[in-house]
């Protein structure tokens, strides 16, 4: 392959048009080859979103409502096994909770926390990045130093710390909704750095361009210039980061819940369900952990594939 470079290089300045066309063709070819996978990933992602949105219509019971759970129905195996019982398609857990219903509701929690976390991280990162890039100087140094230091630590560690501190400040017994809030903040604080860096980089490039100078000349205020004119130019990379971060945020939430530092048993997310189910693995009740696990893995994998495709499509050079 390496020597194929020779004719390319020698042809380059002679007649770029043909080679550009060829490159375009190959990109489309590449995209086409991948697109089937991407289409599947997109459909699965969409399916997960629909399942989460319509969970209350699809589920046979409300797994968050203790009144609907009956211990009589506990630990029932999936429907297709010898011990299966209708209407529990994927079986039930030790509290008599229908696994499928729990997954649908858990999916809702996981997606909600993930999306809210990404939005929070994005808002924080974009704002700090705009400020750092636009004003430069000490502000820039301080923000980017913090970013550098934070980037050396894995997000999960930061999320755990934020979670622990928040619990300590708010009291250990949090209700479900405040836990949700703490999780969103923990995830947001763990993932803002990448946005800030990207936005700062773009702003540094954009702010020297003529249209920004023109906007300054006609006296537009700085925030307006940043949000109206500079920000739209950075949306491509931000979209890519957000998609990939959605997968990471969902993993982080699931991990926190799995570690017992996230959603409580009374309002389980997918990670909580896996933690609960893990306790019954040795008893042979595999379905309690397996189905939430498969749901989580499928969700993350399809979002990741979508993110990869988006990255390639928006900026082939980034690979």
């Amino acid at each position: 392959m390496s020597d194929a470079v020779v004719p390319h290089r020698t042809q380059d300045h002679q007649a770029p048009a043909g080679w550009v066309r060829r490159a375009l063709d190959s990109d489309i070819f590449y995209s086409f080859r991948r697109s089937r996978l991407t289409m599947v990933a997109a459909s699965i992602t969409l399916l997960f979103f629909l399942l989460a949105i319509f969970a209350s219509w699809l589920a046979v019971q409300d797994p968050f409502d203790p009144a609907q759970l009956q211990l009589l129905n506990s630990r029932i195996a999936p429907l297709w096994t010898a011990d299966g019982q209708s209407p529990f398609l994927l079986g039930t857990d030790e509290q008599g909770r229908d696994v499928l219903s729990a997954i649908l509701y858990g999916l809702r929690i996981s997606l909600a926390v993930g999306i809210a976390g990404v939005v929070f991280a994005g808002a924080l990162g974009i704002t700090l990045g705009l400020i750092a890039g636009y004003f430069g100087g000490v502000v820039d140094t301080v923000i980017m130093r913090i970013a550098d230091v934070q980037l050396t630590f894995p997000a999960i560690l930061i999320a755990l710390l934020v979670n622990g501190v928040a619990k300590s400040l708010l009291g250990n017994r949090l209700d479900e909704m405040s836990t949700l809030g703490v999780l969103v903040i923990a995830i947001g604080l763990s993932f803002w750095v990448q946005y800030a860096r990207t936005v700062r980089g773009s702003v540094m490039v954009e702010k020297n361009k003529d249209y920004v100078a023109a906007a300054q000349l006609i006296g537009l205020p700085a925030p307006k210039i940043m949000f109206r004119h500079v920000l739209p130019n950075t949306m491509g990379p931000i979209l890519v980061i957000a998609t990939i971060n959605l997968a990471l945020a969902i993993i982080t939430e699931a991990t926190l819940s799995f570690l017992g530092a996230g959603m409580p048993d009374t309002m389980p997310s997918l990670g909580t369900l896996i933690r609960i189910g893990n306790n019954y693995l040795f008893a042979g009740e595999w379905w309690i952990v397996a189905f939430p696990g498969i749901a989580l893995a499928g969700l993350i994998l399809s979002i990741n594939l979508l993110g990869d495709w988006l990255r390639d499509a928006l900026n082939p050079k980034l690979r």
Partner: protein
Amino acid sequence: MLAFTLRRFLQAIGVMLAVGIIAFAMFRFAGDPVNQIVSIDTSAAERASIRQSLGLDDPVLVQFGRYFINALQFKFGVSYQFRLPVSSLLAERMPATLELAIVATIFAMVAGILMGVYSALRRDTILARLFQAISLIGISLPTFLIGILLIYLFAVTLGWLPSFGRGDVVKLGWWSTGLLTVSGWKAIIMPAITLGLFQMTLIMRLVRAEMLEVLRTDYIRFARARGLTTRAIHFGHALKNTLVPVITVAGLQFGSVIAFSIITETVFQWPGMGLLFVQAVQNVDIPIMAAYLLMVSLIFVTINLVVDILYTVVDPRLRSTVGRAA
């Protein structure tokens, strides 16, 4: 060279100071140090006198100084849950975590480099595609799911490996090791794979990309034009040039491995610092959380420093440019 080392050293101290401030803030404001000593039914007056004796009414800067000096002597206060000094808890748990992290890193490097080299040299084979698929899974699946899957396969179904703990450990002074017993090795296999899988995929992708890049360079073409054997070109010239960035990344990742062991240790109930930390988060045991943050940061910063310095030793170009700049 010396000036470079010194500058890096000062940067490292700066980072540690910043982390120290965060740890102190957690210790002092998120947690109440009085709680380390008293029980729930202590009266308000007693609490106040304890506050006084602990110096909690002193100016914040004085308190920070005191915390900092204590931390330098590895005095991190007393755990709320265990009523034991945090430093002895950490010291007791540290060997387990370090052994796990080292075995996981070695696994990740050996497997990652082998798979990476193979998939760079034999790009279109089925095995290379399989490696690519594994790397996608390694990057996409949450660690704990992989751990659970391994447990289900090798502990529950096949019964080959233990699902929790370190097996039999041997005391070597204050260090307890599981690497001298068969059961210790059996116990570390699954946690090490679970922990190392992510780094392995990272190294594999990096080796593959770097190797393909290096194979395209002029000096490899020239090496071929000199008639060197394929073996000498691939494993002498190409691999050596590939390994410089790979070793850097693997070294820098060691800190992450230790931090990620939080999850692995929880899945496999591995009695290390990570498990201690998770229990601390669950029970809001602030002194342990603050101390863990400091310890992990210290490991991170030290590794970064060592890797930076080693990097200049491995690459002669850097050595002299750095020397000249100094």
